[in-house]
């Protein structure tokens, strides 16, 4: 009775509660200590890794510098003072053959033999700029057939295959390459126009997926806010990146004097790439 009067802390429940609290505190402290220890270990590991990498990097830098100096000094073929191992020679040859295979990519048709046929890669380019490449996985047996490909749906692949695949694979690839390169060329011109002359075009260029129909309103200078010319470009030959039909007209509110210019443009667009034509407007404006 007397004990109970001194306060709950000394009751059996109170003691257990107190003990629990002490245990909890001790546990927390232990966890924190463990965390701190782990954090310190992590920092030490990271620091050591940084030192290791710095050393590696410095060694490589010195190696590369020496290599550059050696080449400048002799001006000829640099050879390792030690005799190169057979493995090193083979590895050199493998890299050399791989490099030549990469050059084939630049020629427009490259590929790799597979277990059941060949996987061709058709690359496209506009002048010196290489654009997308497309692959064709061909099977040789029982007859030549296309297993898989990445040719876009709007390119008449089936038509071309039907005509040439069985009789002349080279011709098939050649014709397909013409289609793909022309498409890539048309798309490139439209993209360049949109990118570099956007202030001379009203809104965005209207085009179809094959990029053989373009319609837009434009101006020859970037300073004006009106777009007095409207053009419709039709590329009737899918193997060509120049239009077969060009209609340039003036918008109803345009001055009549522009009609002559419209006719000149009509002729220009038929002969010159789209973005090159716009570039010539810019230099004409300066004059």
């Amino acid at each position, binding site marked *: 009775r007397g004990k109970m009067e001194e306060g709950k802390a000394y009751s059996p429940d109170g003691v257990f509660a107190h003990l629990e609290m002490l245990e909890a505190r001790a546990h927390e402290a232990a966890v924190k200590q463990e965390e701190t220890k782990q954090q310190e270990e992590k920092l030490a590991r990271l620091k050591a890794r940084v030192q290791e990498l710095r050393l590696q990097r410095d060694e490589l830098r010195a190696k590369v510098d020496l*290599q550059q100096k050696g080449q400048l000094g002799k001006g000829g073929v640099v050879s390792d003072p030690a005799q190169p191992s057979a493995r090193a020679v*083979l590895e050199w*040859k493998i890299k050399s053959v791989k490099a030549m295979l990469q050059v*084939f990519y630049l020629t*427009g048709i490259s590929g790799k033999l597979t277990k059941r046929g060949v996987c061709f890669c058709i690359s*496209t380019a506009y002048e010196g700029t290489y654009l997308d490449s497309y692959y064709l996985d061909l099977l040789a047996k029982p007859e030549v057939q296309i297993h898989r490909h990445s040719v876009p749906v709007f390119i008449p692949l089936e038509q071309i295959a039907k005509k040439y695949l069985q009789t002349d694979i080279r011709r098939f690839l050649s014709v397909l390459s013409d289609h793909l390169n022309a498409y890539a060329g048309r798309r490139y011109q439209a993209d360049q126009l949109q990118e570099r002359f956007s202030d001379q075009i009203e809104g965005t260029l209207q085009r179809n997926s094959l990029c053989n129909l373009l319609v837009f309103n434009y101006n020859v200078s970037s300073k004006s806010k009106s777009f007095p010319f409207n053009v419709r470009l039709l590329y009737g030959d899918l193997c060509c990146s120049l239009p077969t039909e060009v209609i340039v007209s003036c918008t109803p509110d345009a001055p009549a004097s522009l009609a002559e210019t419209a006719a000149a443009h009509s002729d220009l667009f038929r002969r010159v790439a789209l973005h090159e034509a716009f570039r010539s407007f810019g230099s004409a404006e300066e004059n």
Partner: protein
Amino acid sequence: MDNSICQVYEDEIQSLEEEIKFLAEKYEDSQQESTFFSDEEILMSIKSFQREFQGESKGHEFSSDLKAQLESLETDLSFLMKFTGIQFTSHSKKTVEKTRNRTVRKHRLSGNCCSLSFQLEFQLLEVQNKENVSAVITDLSIIMESGEDSDVSKFVSSTEEHGNLLTFFRSLSSYAEWYEHRRCTFLHFK
């Protein structure tokens, strides 16, 4: 506080790893470009390589692996040359500039297509974008054997002016196709 120090270290580690990769590539490129082994040296190496690993069963994997890899690559190359009609006789390249995102290499390439032989020099600029690597040809120079022919020289100078390397090769290949077709037709009538 500790976390920010960790982050600083981790950032430096990443940057160092990238730099190391870049330097290693630069060193290897330079080694590759300044070395040359003749076909005899390569044949000898293949033989000695096979002898080295004749007894060892462990090394045998590496030996046949490298040799098989070389054979597979050479088979692909000879197939492409036969198929396109474009035979490359020599190729060398030199890295002119290399930074994190840009590489400029000067290429020298010679070969022939049927009876037409050519020698090319060009610079290839490769830029690493977010999604892919873009490639642009500059300073294209073409020497053709039958260069005196006015049609050929017109074709060559127009191609050089616009850096039209791909068109050049496609035209050569077309010529080879036509040449082959003509030859077969001719033989047919013999």
